[in-house]
């Protein structure tokens, strides 16, 4: 007899954004002009506007000087200004203002001095460096009193000086910001800080998506903002549209549709599916299906998508597409040229979260195809590789290593397991290695547990101080040790377990403990590609057998015996 266990099906709002968001908060929000302007009647019964406000938003209070969003950070929320004034930087400003890493490339003396300055004490830190950090606890008054803890924020220390020295623009009550980065999963394009004490309505991406979906006016406003701010530039930079004049390009932009597939927080479901062994193409949201009529050109704006064909009883991956790639062009062109209906030769599914632009076929036929001198070239390998040759690609896609721009790929047939790479890493990081020479393996390849500096760095979402960020040069994902609060948000978010939380010590080896919480001080650590050291990453330079490389599964080609 098979026993049956009962489990209530998870609901959309089982995990509200803020448990402290009460009905009175929602009621007062519903009276605000910005919310009244949203057509509440258009929302379905199961996701009413009031429900979205209660479960997908929270009221966040910022003190004067607090930085709300930073240029280059990733975020999954938009903000509506309820009260107070904010400032947005429109010109240059000092990087240190944002709590970013101030590490400079080491000079020759600093490099050599590591021979004697590297500590034998694990994770030893000079505690003086934390004294200058511009980090403080967020406000937790009013409705926020039911929150478990207050967020930590980076703040601008001298607002008048900043206003004097930097060019800024004012933002006031009723203005919305951050929605394009939140919906498009792209980095924030500006830095905004509170000039006075402010109250903001923070709307997480799920709520934003629902409002955009059900309220036409809101959707048009958001889309219009995107068209004005980014789409024209994006289309102009795409080879296919580069020859079009501004007027035609504007018409193409007007007709372009925005679509999103998959979950913004895909890394959470990915980890769950991986652990339960339920990954695979059949669980991925379909963007276009093989055999369907091609009704528009699909352009990937953010995220990754899998191109696959039916094969046997499953799906065979041909390739995967990332930001800037297109799908369906050959079929659309062939259909236009022949005047007949041409169906898609492959399927396109979302690998995690994908942001897609759909340029309708009619627009292409009218404005674009007549300008094309030669037909688009087929770029997808549809069958020259054997299944065995294709297996590595399938594995990389399945494990989402395609997200990597610098995965640590080890050829196990060459690796003598000497750990010279680990020692080299430690020698350039104060005596502490920043990766583990262990990881998932396929055939004779291993992707070690080292930060892969992802194209879609989910670890950066939710960092309260922006300590984890991309470096200006090279886009390496780095952590500013000074402003890291040890909250472990990044480590929990990393789908590949490549960020380690470590307990730090002072120079004499004493454990550092928070006097209030009586807990050790933690810091997030990971590979930083030795960005402060001269030369290539120490791990690569240290391997005598050329077994180790930093590999981009999209750009680099893997060949037997060649890891250049």
């Amino acid at each position, binding site marked *: 007899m098979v026993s049956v266990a009962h489990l209530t099906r998870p609901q959309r709002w089982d995990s509200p954004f803020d448990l402290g968001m009460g009905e009175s908060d929602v009621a007062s929000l519903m009276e605000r002009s910005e919310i009244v302007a949203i057509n509440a009647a258009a929302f379905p019964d199961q996701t009413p506007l009031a429900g979205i406000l209660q479960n997908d938003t929270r009221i966040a209070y910022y003190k004067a000087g607090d930085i709300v969003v930073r240029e280059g950070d990733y975020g999954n929320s938009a903000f509506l200004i309820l009260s107070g004034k904010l400032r947005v930087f429109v010109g240059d400003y000092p990087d240190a203002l944002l709590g970013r890493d101030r590490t400079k490339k080491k000079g020759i003396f600093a490099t050599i001095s590591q021979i004697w300055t590297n500590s034998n004490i694990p994770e030893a830190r000079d505690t003086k460096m934390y004294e200058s950090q511009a980090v403080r606890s967020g406000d937790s008054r009013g409705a926020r009193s039911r929150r478990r803890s207050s967020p930590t924020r980076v703040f601008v220390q001298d607002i008048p000086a900043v206003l004097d020295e930097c060019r800024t623009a004012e933002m006031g009550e009723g203005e919305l910001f951050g929605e394009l980065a939140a919906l498009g999963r792209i980095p924030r394009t500006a830095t905004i800080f509170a000039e006075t004490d402010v109250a903001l309505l923070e709307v997480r991406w799920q709520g934003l998506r629902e409002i955009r979906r059900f309220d036409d006016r809101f959707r048009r406003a958001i889309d219009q903002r995107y068209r004005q701010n980014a789409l024209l530039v994006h289309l102009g930079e795409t080879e296919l549209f580069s020859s079009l004049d501004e007027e035609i390009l504007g018409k193409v932009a007007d007709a372009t549709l925005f679509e999103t597939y998959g979950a913004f927080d895909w890394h959470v479901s990915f980890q769950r599916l991986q652990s339960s062994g339920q990954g695979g193409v059949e669980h991925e949201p379909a963007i276009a299906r093989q055999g369907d009529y091609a009704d528009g050109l699909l352009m990937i704006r953010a995220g990754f998508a899998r191109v696959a064909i039916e094969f046997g009883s499953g799906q065979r991956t041909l390739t995967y597409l990332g930001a800037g790639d297109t799908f369906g062009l050959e079929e659309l062109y062939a259909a236009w040229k022949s005047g007949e209906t041409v169906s898609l030769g492959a399927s396109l599914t979302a690998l995690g979260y994908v942001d897609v632009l759909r340029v309708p076929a009619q627009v292409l036929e009218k404005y674009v195809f007549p300008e094309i001198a030669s037909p688009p070239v087929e770029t997808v390998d549809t069958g020259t590789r054997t299944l065995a040759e294709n297996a590595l690609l399938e594995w990389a896609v399945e494990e989402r290593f395609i997200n990597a721009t610098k995965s640590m790929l080890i050829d196990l047939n060459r690796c003598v*397991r000497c750990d010279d790479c680990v020692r080299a890493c430690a020698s350039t990081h104060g005596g502490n290695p920043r990766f583990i020479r262990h990881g998932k393996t396929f055939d004779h390849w291993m992707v070690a547990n080292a930060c892969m500096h992802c194209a879609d760095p989910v670890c950066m979402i939710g960092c309260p101080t922006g300590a984890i960020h991309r470096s200006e040069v090279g886009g390496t994902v780095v952590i500013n040790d000074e402003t890291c609060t040890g909250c472990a948000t990044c480590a929990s978010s990393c789908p590949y377990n490549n960020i380690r939380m470590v307990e730090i010590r002072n120079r004499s080896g004493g454990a550092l403990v928070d006097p209030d919480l009586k807990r050790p001080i933690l810091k997030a650590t990971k590979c930083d590609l030795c960005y402060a050291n001269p030369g290539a990453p120490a791990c690569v*330079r240290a391997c005598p057998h050329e077994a180790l490389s930093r590999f981009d599964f999209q750009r680099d080609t893997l060949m037997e015996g060649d890891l250049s």
Partner: protein
Amino acid sequence: MNLIRIRHLMIWLAAGIVFDLLLVEGRSVQVQLESPSELTGYWMLGTIIFLALFNLRKRLSMLPLGNASTWLTLHVVIGVFALAVFWLHTRTIWPNGMYEKTLAILFYLTVLSGIIGYLIQRIYPRLITQTGIEVIFERIPLRVSELRQKAEALVLECCDQTRVDTLGRHYLDSLQWFFSRPRFTFNHIVGSQRSRQWLKHQDEAVRRYLNEDERKYLDDLSRLARQKEHIDLHYTLQGAMKRWLLVHIPLTAALLALSFWHFLVVNVYSL
């Protein structure tokens, strides 16, 4: 031909050219009725010092001293070059004199340990990878201990559930020895399949005396034994790849020290 191979070829070519130049120069010194041993001696000492610097490069990974792979290629090529220069310098394979013989023994042993190290580093990684598992060397004792505990728990459960102690006695007689620590070290070193054969024999020897329920336990036990066999292989081969340096480096240090003394003595008394 990829860039790595081109680089290797260039280094070999350069070494060959340098050796030819050294031969020509040696002849020219000989024509002047002087001994070429002084010239080749300096070259010999220089190459030994350069070869020893590879270890220093490994310890100074924080410095931009070039890729270790290039250093390894240079190390191998100049190692071969040193052997040729050694024969050129001594003009014999086995020199006379106690001190010279000691130097020659140290030199040959260093070269031999280097060749062995090079070969095992080329061959063993593939053998390890073929096991299909990856285990960090330092964690092997823990993995062996875990497997032993699993095996013992399995045998105890078998005795408890089937009320028969045949498998338990067999475990105590033979498999306990196998699970206690890494075994068949020499066989793994030489690439022999002895451990697999031994395990097969142990399985067959007891299977005929087991009932159906006990055989299921034996199947599980054999699975654990195969895992243990793979870990033993890792332990032996990874250990060999680490430990050969414990021979090569002290020999190099001794050779370097004696060569310096030789250099001093020659310069003080013979020149």
